[in-house]
């Protein structure tokens, strides 16, 4: 702080009547001397790494996650404002800048509120306590006689003669430790002995202030990463092979000689073109003549994919949950039913193909990225460029929605490799075909289910095993060279992880087994079908199988699907979600399928339930099935949603509403098509997604508020129920069980005709 500012602060204190206090109080309590003049280095145990106060009393919250477009930044501001006791507009949230914010893991697993938000809430509570103690010294009164109103500490019961946060420490930085758990990324945690506000005292949490990011988006004043322009920056386009696995063996630079400033950059197996003007880079990418190596991927083709998965050797089998003795249970059963379900490969297919900017120098680098994981992107860039991790600064910016680990980490790595090579800042923007054909994919799977039913109609044994490609050929954290295409093309060895998942709910059968098996990837290196997390990575593939099969059990025992779930769900919050959805929908108790199914347009209802972390969701779909065409229309959704404490109800409703539309798209339309040598889904014609006319006609969202419960996540949990809820509704309408996503008209029509 400059001496001028110090002087003006003192003048302000004199003018405000606080001068008497500062003269009579102990010298160390002089407000202008509170805190450090410069911000201490970022460290998990430093309060200054989480919060600081500006001279005007604005609270800056340093949030090591990001807002992928769901309004998280506003909710985080609410949590901080509530706990530190300032008006919402006095909180500014800085997100995802490794130079300013701790690594809290970026966007991940929809835990932005439950983890990162709660970390900031706890530190805000501690900061409020500290500010009261500073004020106690300044005001010469015991701390327990003081309280805070709108960022001014004053005597309880009297709003006069207070002292503001800005006066206490504004422009300087907290010098206090916090009790940090020593961990980083998603696991970063902070404890405080200062009690958090009880729900009854909330003024900001539970309100629905409007999203702060929207005016800048609506009036086109908010700068996205795509809009960043650096002096001397070159535009790059990557060159991908026609046949997967092929690498360049000869590049004819003369083929782009007539395009101004364009040139090819060829490093090992990585090939790109760059130009000063973006259009010239696009033209050069189209014109560049390349000879490629022979490659024979021998992909099974998307039509043969599920047969391939069934027959493929198992790399890892993991029984994640088991109770009783499943073999004994099936031996005791009077009858056994079985059901298999197939889920396709799906793409993130972001609205904008990935874009990133990198400026790599000899001794340090900066990357600008809209990756969900900016800290990990920086670690990956460090490995690729040979720089030390702390020499790479990642600055997250708004960009296209990513829906999981999309192609933005790949683009960031490409930009960094090119910038290091060319020694200038480089902006990479992928083309449409890269955004669909070359992003890391959500895995395809086969869900095998069986149930043993005793003579009384009770389900006594249940087994659900998902067989799939691992969901982690490349890490969702994209923190290693092995996790990005550039790393593969530069020869970094792969480090795949074997993982799938099981459905989570409190269904209790006497004998149960839930597990998964993984199969080898179709191509190891630089594969367009490499897998990673697609939004709700545990959801759609797994729940399509398990929640459709729960419905099969209900039908096999002539039980109403809601009643069946309530019969076997034990956890009260599980049960409440199911009951709430059914009541709101006006569910009449009967078994599926409904009677009188001969109509040309058949109408049915279906329910699906899940628990994900501490979020409990029941989704009811009502559909119309056009028998002649196989077309399904979603007439209505009812979603009962229990996320624990609700920070911003309207934003939560929007998050659920939008993701149910997205989830419907994945259930009805989305499938990455590929032949024996390449992905053939390359644009919006070959990778169809939901359009306006097919949007669910009515979406009712019923929020179950539990202010006493910790907040959980909401950003992706509801969408995973769409395939099973729709499929169960189609069964109710027609008596035909859909066993393969997506529910395209051709596929539905064929299923109807098989009966």
């Amino acid at each position: 702080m400059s001496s001028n500012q110090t002087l003006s602060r003192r003048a302000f204190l004199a003018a405000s009547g606080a001068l008497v206090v500062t003269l009579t109080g102990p010298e160390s309590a002089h407000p202008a001397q509170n805190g450090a003049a410069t911000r201490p280095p970022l460290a998990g145990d430093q309060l200054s790494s989480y919060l600081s106060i500006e001279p005007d009393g604005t609270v800056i919250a340093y949030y090591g996650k990001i807002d992928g477009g769901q309004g998280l930044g506003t909710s985080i501001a609410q949590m901080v404002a509530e706990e530190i006791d300032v008006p919402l507009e006095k909180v500014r949230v800085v997100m995802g800048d490794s130079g300013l914010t701790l690594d809290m893991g970026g966007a991940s697993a929809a835990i932005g509120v439950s983890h990162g938000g709660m970390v900031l809430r706890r530190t805000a509570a501690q900061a409020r306590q500290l500010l009261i103690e500073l004020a106690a010294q300044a005001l010469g009164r015991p701390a327990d006689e003081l309280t805070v109103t709108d960022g001014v500490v004053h005597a309880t019961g009297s709003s006069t003669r207070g002292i503001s946060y800005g006066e206490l420490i504004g422009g300087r930085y907290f010098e206090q430790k916090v009790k940090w758990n020593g961990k980083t990324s998603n696991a970063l945690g902070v404890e405080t002995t200062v009690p958090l506000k009880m729900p009854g005292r909330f003024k900001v949490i539970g309100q629905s202030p409007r999203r702060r990011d929207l005016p800048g988006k609506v009036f086109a004043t908010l700068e996205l990463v795509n809009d960043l322009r650096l002096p001397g920056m070159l535009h790059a386009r990557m060159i991908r092979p026609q046949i997967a696995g092929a690498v360049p063996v000869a590049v004819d630079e003369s083929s782009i000689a007539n395009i101004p400033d364009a040139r090819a950059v060829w490093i090992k197996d990585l090939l790109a073109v760059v130009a000063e003007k973006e259009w010239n880079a696009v033209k050069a990418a189209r014109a560049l003549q390349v000879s490629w190596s022979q490659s024979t991927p021998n992909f099974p083709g998307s039509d043969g994919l599920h047969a391939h998965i069934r027959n493929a050797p198992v790399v890892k089998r993991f029984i994640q949950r088991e109770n009783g003795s499943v073999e004994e249970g099936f031996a005791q059963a009077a009858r056994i039913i079985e059901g298999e379900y197939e889920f396709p490969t799906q793409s993130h297919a972001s609205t904008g193909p990935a874009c990133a900017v990198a400026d790599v120098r000899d001794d340090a680098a900066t990357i600008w990225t809209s990756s969900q994981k900016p800290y990990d992107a920086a670690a990956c860039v460090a490995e690729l460029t040979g720089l030390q991790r702390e020499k790479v600064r990642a600055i997250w910016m708004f960009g296209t929605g990513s829906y999981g680990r999309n192609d933005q980490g790949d683009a960031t790595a490409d930009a960094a490799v090119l910038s290091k090579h060319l020694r200038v800042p480089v902006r990479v923007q992928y083309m449409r075909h890269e955004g669909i054909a070359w992003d890391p994919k959500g895995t395809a799977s086969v869900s095998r289910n069986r149930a043993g039913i005793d003579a009384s109609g009770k389900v006594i044994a249940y087994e659900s095993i998902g067989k799939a490609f691992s969901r982690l050929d490349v890490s969702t954290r994209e923190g290693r060279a092995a996790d990005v295409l550039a790393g593969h093309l530069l020869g970094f060895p792969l480090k795949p992880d074997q993982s799938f998942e099981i459905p989570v709910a409190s269904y209790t059968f006497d004998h149960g087994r839930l597990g998964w098996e993984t199969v080898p990837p179709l191509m190891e290196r630089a594969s367009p079908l490499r897998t990673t997390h697609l939004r709700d990575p545990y959801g759609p593939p797994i729940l399509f199988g398990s929640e459709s099969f729960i419905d099969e059990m209900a039908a096999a025992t002539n039980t109403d699907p809601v009643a069946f779930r309530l019969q076997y769900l034990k956890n009260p919050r599980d049960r409440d979600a199911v009951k709430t959805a059914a009541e709101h929908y006006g569910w009449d108790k009967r078994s599926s399928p409904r009677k009188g199914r001969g109509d040309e347009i058949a109408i049915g209802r279906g329910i699906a339930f899940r628990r994900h972390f501490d979020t409990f969701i029941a989704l009811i779909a009502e559909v119309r099935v056009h028998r002649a065409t196989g077309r399904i229309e979603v007439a209505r959704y009812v979603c009962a949603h229990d996320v624990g404490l609700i920070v911003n109800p309207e934003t939560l409703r929007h998050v659920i509403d939008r993701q149910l539309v997205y989830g419907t798209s994945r259930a009805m339309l989305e499938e990455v098509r590929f032949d024996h040598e390449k992905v053939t889904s390359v644009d919006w014609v070959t990778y169809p997604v939901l359009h306006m006319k097919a949007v669910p006609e009515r979406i009712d969202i019923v929020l179950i508020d539990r202010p006493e419960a910790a907040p959980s996540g909401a950003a992706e949990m509801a969408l995973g129920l769409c395939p099973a809820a729709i499929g169960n509704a189609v069964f109710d309408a027609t008596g035909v069980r859909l066993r393969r996503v997506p529910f395209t008209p051709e596929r539905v029509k064929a299923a109807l005709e098989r009966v």
Partner: protein
Amino acid sequence: MRIELDVNGKAQVIEVDDPDMPLLYALRDDLQLNNPRFGCGLGQCGACTVHVDGRAVRSCMTPVAAAGGAQITTLAGLGTPERPHPLQTAWIEEQVNQCAYCINRWIMTAAELLAHNPRPSEAEIKEALDPLICRCGTHGAALRAVKRAAQSA
């Protein structure tokens, strides 16, 4: 080659070496406008939508030479926080967007619709907006916002 463009009411002159360069790159690269955006380059999604003489066009498919002399309006030129277009007001009222990468396509397409049909039916709105892509699932909210803007106009 010199091309004169009238963008958001301001006369601009750019020098291009390729008259076939799409208008999108003239707006983004030469004039440094942050909207429209690249979405597909194929005319399939609408992220690049601008108005050319009042018609919503895909700037990724429109040669810059063909836009010479025309009046071009981008989202930023449609309205400002002080003087918002009714659709921009409605978009905020309905809190439509998530990432908003695709926002140009929705508002510019809807603005063309309302200019020619101030009281569209729901079916007409759906018809007009059906070709547009949004991966965040804001379709229903966008529909509500267009209805709101039509009622307020």
